[in-house]
């Protein structure tokens, strides 16, 4: 049967995922992270240094351990904090996965779009500690500025790669990684690049735990059983478990992907980003649902076409409930939903990238992961298919959502590889 002009155009404009890289509290690469998720492992640990900190109730976090930064030459590394170092490792893996060399990046039409929630809090702390201790502006390190700037991860990754092209550094806290993917798609769709290296990174600092603890939104009831602390949608959930990590995914236009015969690992079918424009602590149900609908429409699909939703669900009382109600509003009862934050806590900027990668893996395998620690579904949640065991589903499309502080909503519609 002859394809319609419209179908051919849509096919030519498709955006493929061609490479992934992850550094997380579950593992230092994509296979180990996905394997840990599939085996239901937790990356959450008790942080010893936080136990004696007066006023801090949350003592658990998803820390990246055994990370060796020596693969980065000293002169490149000296301006990096851990978030940039982790991002370089994730990018190496993604480029290798995509079959792209660093040389390719400067020869092809490539953009790098990576961000973090903030610059390095550890570097800020060290700088201010010296300043307050000595009462002098002298004695500051020359490299602090490069670690603390908002676009620290972007500049350092570009320096590491020797990348000469366009670099952007979005920053929208928990939706940064998803927003980077969305921006990459928009630039490819607009014809401004063929390949977008998208992702995010954040390093764990006690300041983040303090911020959520202060807002009564950090988990503190399972400090002695850290693997149980993050439990989205569960009746006994009690807040965010802060974490760290980095992730990169490579988006590519169909013509570029086919032109170099790169293996496609999935398709980005649709996307939407909006701001709640009112609530700053968490988005309203209305704005989350509206955002999801725009993404579905962008994909040319209807809610029934999407069988699985990877939820942002950070394990807070109100956030999970609001989000579940918004998903229910869009999809009704039949959709399957889970969150991988039960395994790895909330690593902020890269979480949207990691969740997209995990969701693509589920789509491609046809098996969907449960929410770890969802043992007793909160009866306040609307009636949906909350996955509490590995489940086989027949669907070719899934949604991955991130709803960040400031009311930043990002929804991505992902399709299995062809």
């Amino acid at each position: 049967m002859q394809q319609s002009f419209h179908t051919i155009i849509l096919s030519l404009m498709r955006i493929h995922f061609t490479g992934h890289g992850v550094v997380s509290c579950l593992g230092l690469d994509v296979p180990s992270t996905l394997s840990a998720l599939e085996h239901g492992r937790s990356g959450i640990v008790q942080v010893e240094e936080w136990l004696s900190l007066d006023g801090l109730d949350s003592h658990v976090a998803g820390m990246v351990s055994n990370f060796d930064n020596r693969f980065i030459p000293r002169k490149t590394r000296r301006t990096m904090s851990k978030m940039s170092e982790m991002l370089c490792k994730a990018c190496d893996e993604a480029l290798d996965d995509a079959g792209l060399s660093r040389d390719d990046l400067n020869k092809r039409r490539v953009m790098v779009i990576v961000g973090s929630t903030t610059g390095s809090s550890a570097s800020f702390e060290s700088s201010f500690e010296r300043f307050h201790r000595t009462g002098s502006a002298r004695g500051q390190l020359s490299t602090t500025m490069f670690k603390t700037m908002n676009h620290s991860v972007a500049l350092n990754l570009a320096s590491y790669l020797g990348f000469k092209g366009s670099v952007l550094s979005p920053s929208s806290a928990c939706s940064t990684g998803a927003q980077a993917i969305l921006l990459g798609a928009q630039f490819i769709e607009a014809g401004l690049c063929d390949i977008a290296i998208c992702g995010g990174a954040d390093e764990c600092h006690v300041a983040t735990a303090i911020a959520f603890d202060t807002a009564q939104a950090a988990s503190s009831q399972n400090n002695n059983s850290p693997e149980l602390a993050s439990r989205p949608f569960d009746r006994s959930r009690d807040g965010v478990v802060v974490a760290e990590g980095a992730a990169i995914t490579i988006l590519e236009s169909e013509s570029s992907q086919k032109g170099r015969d790169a293996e496609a690992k999935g398709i980005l079918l649709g996307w939407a980003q909006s701001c709640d424009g009112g609530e700053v602590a968490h988005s309203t149900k209305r704005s989350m649902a509206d955002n999801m609908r725009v993404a579905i429409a962008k994909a040319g699909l209807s809610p029934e076409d999407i069988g699985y939703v990877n939820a942002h669900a950070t394990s807070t009382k109100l956030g999970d409930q609001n989000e579940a109600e918004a998903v229910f509003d869009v999809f009704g009862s039949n959709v399957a939903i889970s969150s991988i934050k039960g395994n790895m806590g909330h690593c902020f900027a890269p979480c949207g990238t990691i969740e997209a990668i995990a969701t693509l893996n589920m789509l491609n395998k046809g098996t969907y992961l449960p929410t770890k620690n969802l043992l007793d579904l909160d009866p306040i949640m609307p009636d949906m298919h909350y996955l509490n065991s590995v489940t086989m589903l027949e669907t070719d499309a899934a949604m991955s959502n991130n709803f960040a502080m400031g009311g930043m909503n990002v929804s991505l519609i992902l399709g299995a590889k062809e």
Partner: protein
Amino acid sequence: MVDEFEIAPELLLEEALIRDTLELDSLDAVDLSVTLTDRIEVEVDPSAFYELRTLGDIYEMVEGLLTTSKG
């Protein structure tokens, strides 16, 4: 030098060139001045490094600073 700047110990010779052999640049000069200031408890001005060529020159400068501060 080994800990802060990851320079191989065998390169730490008196005649080693700061820029060409040890590969230290202006950013490193600032951080080296902070490290030395902390170590010898005498302020080392980072701009002083711009006039120096070799590791031996740095030793000489530090010796001079220590002598002046004791004197």
